[in-house]
């Protein structure tokens, strides 16, 4: 019990020091989940796992991000800190299906 208390006491420090990781999977040219809620005003690390064998380009005009993701790989993209709002993103190579949105609250 005492140990648990210590761990809980340390949590705010950990939360401050580390970026918040968000995991997204890209499969059959679709992002899962396609809507991601994140806290506003914080730096976030997106970890996108491309389970397709073909490459994809993560692109978002509103987030000002673009990054090639190789087939069967995990890509790291930093975003934020963001104002509250909706930030759509898409896979440029398969724009018809690969759509998603980051919602900062």
């Amino acid at each position: 019990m005492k140990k648990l208390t210590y761990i809980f006491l340390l949590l705010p420090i950990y939360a401050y020091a580390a970026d918040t990781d968000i995991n997204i999977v890209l499969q059959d040219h679709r992002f899962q989940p396609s809507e991601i809620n994140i806290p506003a005003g914080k730096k976030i690390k997106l970890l996108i796992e491309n389970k397709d064998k073909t490459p994809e380009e993560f692109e978002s005009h509103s987030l000002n991000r673009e990054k090639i993701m190789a087939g069967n790989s995990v890509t790291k993209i930093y975003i934020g800190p963001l104002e509250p709002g909706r930030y759509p993103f898409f896979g440029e190579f398969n724009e018809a299906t690969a759509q998603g949105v980051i919602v900062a609250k």
Partner: protein
Amino acid sequence: MFSTAIIVFREVLEAAIIVGILAAATRDVPRRNRWLLAGMLVGLLGSAMVAASTDLIASFASGVGQELFNALVLGVAVLMLAWHNIWMSSHGAELASHARNVASDIREGHSECSVLLVVVGLAVLREGSETVLFLYGIAASGDSGTHSMLFGGLIGLLTGIGVGYTIYAGLLRIPMRWFFAATTGLVLLLAAGMASTAAHFLIQADLIPALASPLWDTSALLPENGLSGMLLHSLIGYDARPAGMQVIFYMTALTLIIIGMKMNAKPRQSIQTTGTI
């Protein structure tokens, strides 16, 4: 097919504009065509290699290798363009006046040609590798529509090259006395825009702070994915939602190159004695 054409067009456009402007800016450099062609071939070869090693590049520097690579490529291109403009500010008038001796011609032409080779090579490499990956994805998927999509890619490629050539041909029609100001100005803005894009990649890699992000938002007025936004992005580095740091990089590159040009510019008199411009 149509969407494929647009994607390839978008990738090719930027490289085509850079090649078009540089080809015009070096019109009087001896054996320019040979170097231009060499640059494009090196770039194409390089883009296939970069595309093939996407995984490897991405894994460098704990996952931000791609951003570092892009920033590096852009940084080298900015330096070469800066060198071009600074060199041209003292020699351009002589080159144009055709009143030069052959020995200095070859010597000075060489450094200018290496700029051409490197910048064209890097531009084709950077944009080309994304096109290669995209087309590879289509070919690998093996869907029934593969052929028409690859055909769309070809149309996008040709359209992009067409825009680059139009810019080149348009620049050549500018009267000689405005020509240097025009091409120098375009190369200057091209370099500043690349510096801003380099900053964009370093921010994305979380290596430098974004400062204000975005500093402004003109995406409703002039979206970056529209045709004019795309053209302006390639020409002058327009960004609808730039981070504060990007603007700092842009202005710094612009200022430093202008200072370099002013310091290197020959006094007006000596230009007038070397020939008529």
